[in-house]
Each structure stands twice: as C-alpha cells, then as structure tokens.
C-alpha cells in the first residue's frame, strides 16, 4: 500500500498544507515532523510560485515570503530529504506547472522520488493536459493527484476513473482561502466519484474551523487545510511551530469525530 493510501486506511484524514520556505526553510523543516506528531495524516508542501493563479491572498503572500527568503526548488528538495529522515508521513508537493516544466519535468519527478515525495498536485494542469506530466510521474513512481471542482459535473467520473493517490475535491468556486460558509453539495460530488472509483476524496478550499472540518470529513474521506495554517505562520513567523501544531491537533480531533 502506498504511503498516500495508508493515510486514508480505515480513517478520515486530516491534510495540512504549508508553503515551503515560509518564513524560511529551517522553520518548514521543523514544522513538518511536528505537524505529523500533532496528528496530520498527510502534508502538502507548496513550492512557492511567483504567480499562483489558484491561490487567494493568504497563500499568495506566503509564496512571496518564501521566495523572498531565498527558497528555490533545489533547496526544497534538500529540505524534504532531511525531513524524510525524521518522519514517514506521506508528503505531497503542490505547485504550478511552470516551476516543474522549467526544472525539467522528468528530472523533477525523479528528484521527488529520490527525496521521498509521494505525490504531486498541479492546479493548473487539468485532465485535458495531464499528459504534460503523468508519464514522468508514472516513470518515477510519483502519484499525480487530480482535482474536481463544483463546476466539474459530468467531468467527475472521467477524472475519478484515472485518479491516483487521492482526489482533491475543491469545495467552492474561486481560489483558496478561508470561507465562512461552504455551499456546494459535497456529498453529491463524492457520490459521483464513488460510483466509478474507490479513490479517497479529500475536501479542500475554505476550511478553517473544526466545525467545518468535521462537516466536510463526514461526507468524504478527509479535509485539507491550507490558508488557515498559513495565517498562523504569517502571524507567528519562526515561532509558528507550536501554534500550528495546536491548531492541527484540534482539527485532527474534529476530523476523527466525523468518523
């Protein structure tokens, strides 16, 4: 069983996102194993990009902080390698196609495998363009995580049938960021997926409170939280490890209670 599959094995998963290198690589390196200890089942590491078109203001700012602290793709690979020595938690990179393409797609996925990355999420590579990267992922044994959105409708089964790892279900229109209310009928989306595939479905975009996490996890296989964590990192900077971990424990408990 792949590490990603294990994260969902007989349980609902709490997935945390951090932008690699925010506020600096040392902090991220310390944060990831601690988030795992605090209960995160899978961690997404954002490779910062100058122009993250699927992100709201919180993660845009996180990317800017990470880039201005001197984070590069190579430095992130080195950091992941060091983290991998300390934890067995599934790690997934989330970034845009340009940093991958420019690095060399095959070189990138090979490097991911070497460093212990389990999967990649690329929000600007939809189903129609996944040939751009899927071959290199398969070759390197990296799972390519697909996304479905509230607009996907009849596209859902086509995407779900070929999905790997877990399916990232986008809860709302627009970009990432904390929302007071999620209005999409998530159960219906998940049902459409489950009709054609047993792939785990995790819900992301807009989840910030334990109540939301519980609600989302109760109709799916897990909850993904990014902006709410990045807000804590923005507030505490290098001192963020403890407050982030406190938050992760609370959110994990909420997800578990949805079991």
């Amino acid at each position, binding site marked *: 069983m792949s590490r990603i599959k294990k994260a969902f094995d007989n349980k609902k998963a709490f997935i945390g996102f951090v932008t690699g290198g925010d506020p600096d690589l040392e902090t991220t390196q310390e944060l990831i194993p601690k988030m795992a200890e605090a209960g995160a089942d899978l961690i997404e590491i954002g490779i910062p*990009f*100058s*122009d993250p*078109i*699927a992100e*709201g*203001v919180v993660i*845009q700012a996180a990317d*800017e902080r990470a*880039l201005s602290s001197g984070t*590069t*793709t*190579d430095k992130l690979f080195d950091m992941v390698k060091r983290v991998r020595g300390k934890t067995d938690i599934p790690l997934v990179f989330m970034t*845009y*196609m*340009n*940093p*991958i*393409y*420019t*690095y060399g797609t095959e070189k990138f996925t090979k490097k991911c495998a070497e460093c212990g990355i389990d999967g990649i999420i690329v*929000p*600007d*590579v*939809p*189903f*129609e*363009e996944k040939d*751009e990267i899927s071959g290199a992922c398969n070759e390197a044994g990296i799972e390519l995580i697909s*996304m*479905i*959105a*509230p*607009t*996907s*409708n009849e*596209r859902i089964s086509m*995407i779900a049938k070929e999905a790997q790892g877990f399916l990232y279900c*986008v809860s709302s*229109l*627009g*970009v990432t960021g904390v929302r007071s209310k999620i209005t999409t009928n998530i159960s219906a989306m998940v049902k459409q997926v489950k009709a054609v595939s047993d792939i785990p479905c995790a819900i992301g975009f807009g989840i910030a409170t334990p109540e939301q996490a519980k609600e989302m996890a109760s109709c799916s296989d897990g909850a993904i939280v990014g902006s709410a964590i990045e807000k804590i990192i923005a507030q505490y900077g290098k001192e963020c490890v403890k407050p982030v971990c406190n938050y992760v424990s609370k959110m994990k408990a909420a997800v578990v209670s949805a079991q």
Partner: protein
Amino acid sequence: MNEKKGRYGSYGGQYIPETLIPAVQELEREYEKYKNDADFKRELNDLLTKYAGRPSLLYYAEKMTKDLGGAKIYLKREDLNHTGSHKINNVLGQVLLAKKMGKTRVIAETGAGQHGVATATAAALMDMECEIFMGKEDTDRQVLNCYRMELLGAKVHPVTTGTMTLKDAVNETMREWASRMDDTLYVLGSVMGPHPFPMIVRDFQKVIGEEIKVQLMEAEGKLPDAVIACVGGGSNAMGAFYEFIPDTSVRLIGCEAAGLGVDNPKNAATIANGSVGIFHGMKSLFCQDEYGQIAPVYSISAGLDYPGIGPEHANLYETGRAQYVPITDEEAVDAFEYLSRTEGIIPAIESAHAVAYARKLAPTMDKDRIIVVNISGRGDKDVAAIARYRGVQIFE
C-alpha cells in the same frame, strides 16, 4: 496545426484550474456556434463599420518614404478606430459573443488601459456590467484612462499583488472568473491565455491583415514585401500577420520591447530573452528565471510590458515564418517623435516600436519594395510620459 486542441505546434493548450475548464469549454462551444452564424456576422460587421469606423485607412507615408530613401512605406491606421486602437476589433466581437451567450457581465485585464477602455466602451454600448483589473502601478501611471473607464460605467479594481502590473492583472482576472462564471465572460485582451482565447482574439483581429491585402492590392496591385507590428502579447501583430502567413514572400516582423536594452535586466523582450514555459494557461515563451519564477519585466510602453507572448507567435518564431526584433525605449521614443514630425501622426508608444524598425529596414530595401507598418494605436495617451522621458515635467 491542431486547432481543436488549441495547439500551435507544441505551443498553446489549456493549462488552467479544473474550476475554469467548463467555462473555457463553454466559450469554445458557443464561439464555434456563432462564428459562422449569419446574424452574428452581420451584427459584428455593423458594429465594426458603423461604430468602430472600419475599414481603417491604409495610408501611403510619402514623406517618410522619401526621407528614408528605400522601400515604400504604408501605415495601417488602427489608431483611427473608435477608442484609438486595434483593441476595439476584439472587444466588439467578444462582448457581442458574451451577449449571445446570455452573459450579463464582462471582466477584463488591462495594462496601459487601452483594452480596459475598449472593453468598457463595448460594455456600455451593449448594456453589460463591466469590471476591469489593472495593476496598481498602472492605475497610478494611467490616471486618465482609469477615469475614462469609470466614465464609461466600468468599475476599476487596482491590483496590489505581485509586481502590480499587467501579468498580475491577468492573474486577478482569472481568479475573479473562477469565482463567478455563470453570468460573466472574461474578455481577454490579447492572443494569449488558454485555448480558445488565442484563436478567438486572432480571428477578431485578422480583419487588419485582410484589409491591408485588399487596400494594397487596390493601391499597388501587389502584396507587401514586409509587414511590421509591435508585439506584447501579440494581438495587433497576429491580426496584421495572419492573412499573410500563406504568402511566403511577405516577411512578417514583430517588434518586441527591449526596454533599456536586451542585455539589461530592464526589458520585456520575450523572444530574445525568454524560454519555453507554461503560464497563464498556455505553453509559450516567457521571461523567467532558472526555477520558472516569472520575471518582472520593463518597457516604457505599458502595453508591451508583459513577460510572455501568444502561443501562435511562439510557433511562427520557431518555424521561422515570422521574425522578431528587439527595439529599445530610446529607439521607440525617437520613432514616436519622428512619425509625429514627419507625417503629423502621433503613434502609440507601442506602435512606435514598429515604426522604429521600419526606419532601420526601409533604407536597406529597393524603392520598388513595400513595407506596411501597423500603427496599432494613437499616442495621445503617451504624450505626458514621453515629455517626462525627455525631461519635461508634465503630469496628467
């Protein structure tokens, strides 16, 4: 060229979030339905002829020709269109299409404000709600154009993320579209972005080259030897080039903004300095660093101040069908002043990049040769900036 997949050679594609895919697919479907629809074509033609003032003139620049002492120079006067640039051709098409699609709201990015003003104009005419996203740097530099858009009933959102210029305005318009697409169409301003935008914008702009061909045939009874246009994203150039692509005797020359020089970091010359990347929905050439972070670019011309180029241009470059030359700020400003004094035509600073290259090329060609320069817009908007460039402190 596989138009169905929106590819131009290896360039193009639809690299956008899943949320937006149904929206671009809807746009493609509706465009394919309407583009050959008799009513749509008639309505668009009426707008172009009775509202925008098409066909635009093809003017023989006799004084410039004599002064340069080589090839005959014709100017395609897109500056004479309503709103003062070629941008109106595309927005009339796209806003009419939006209307047919049942949309009630259009959104658009703008750099200097030309596309924003054109979109706000078409929206006013066709009773659409209109919101324009413009980098904070540009709203500060182009106060007059912001007011103009508001006068036309549009809402202008200053974009404060990233470098606060055109690329960030595109990012923000895409984000806005992803959050509201039921009643809203993104009216993209250039031959860039995800398919079908590069194709749709080119189709609405190709009237420029089609008119050039007919008008020059009437005037000279032959094809031009070269067509020159400035290139940012590349819509006026694609509009001028497209008709001539099969006519291999016609040289197609795009002029990029080299800012302070191609060897200086302050430039926006994508073909000269860029490399292949995937950004803003398309595989194309971009100014970027070794890790694929998009580079901040610079040009005196806000309309050419973009770190990428449309995918069809990238392919025309790769196949050798078109050539692309860098023009510096200094050369463009010289050409801006030159055309003003020589022909009494003040070109947009963007278009002045094309005039600058014509000044270099014409003297190397025989007198029986013909160059057509696309004057994509008028220069009124640039007068204050050029004055400041020359040390005269005029502010709008």
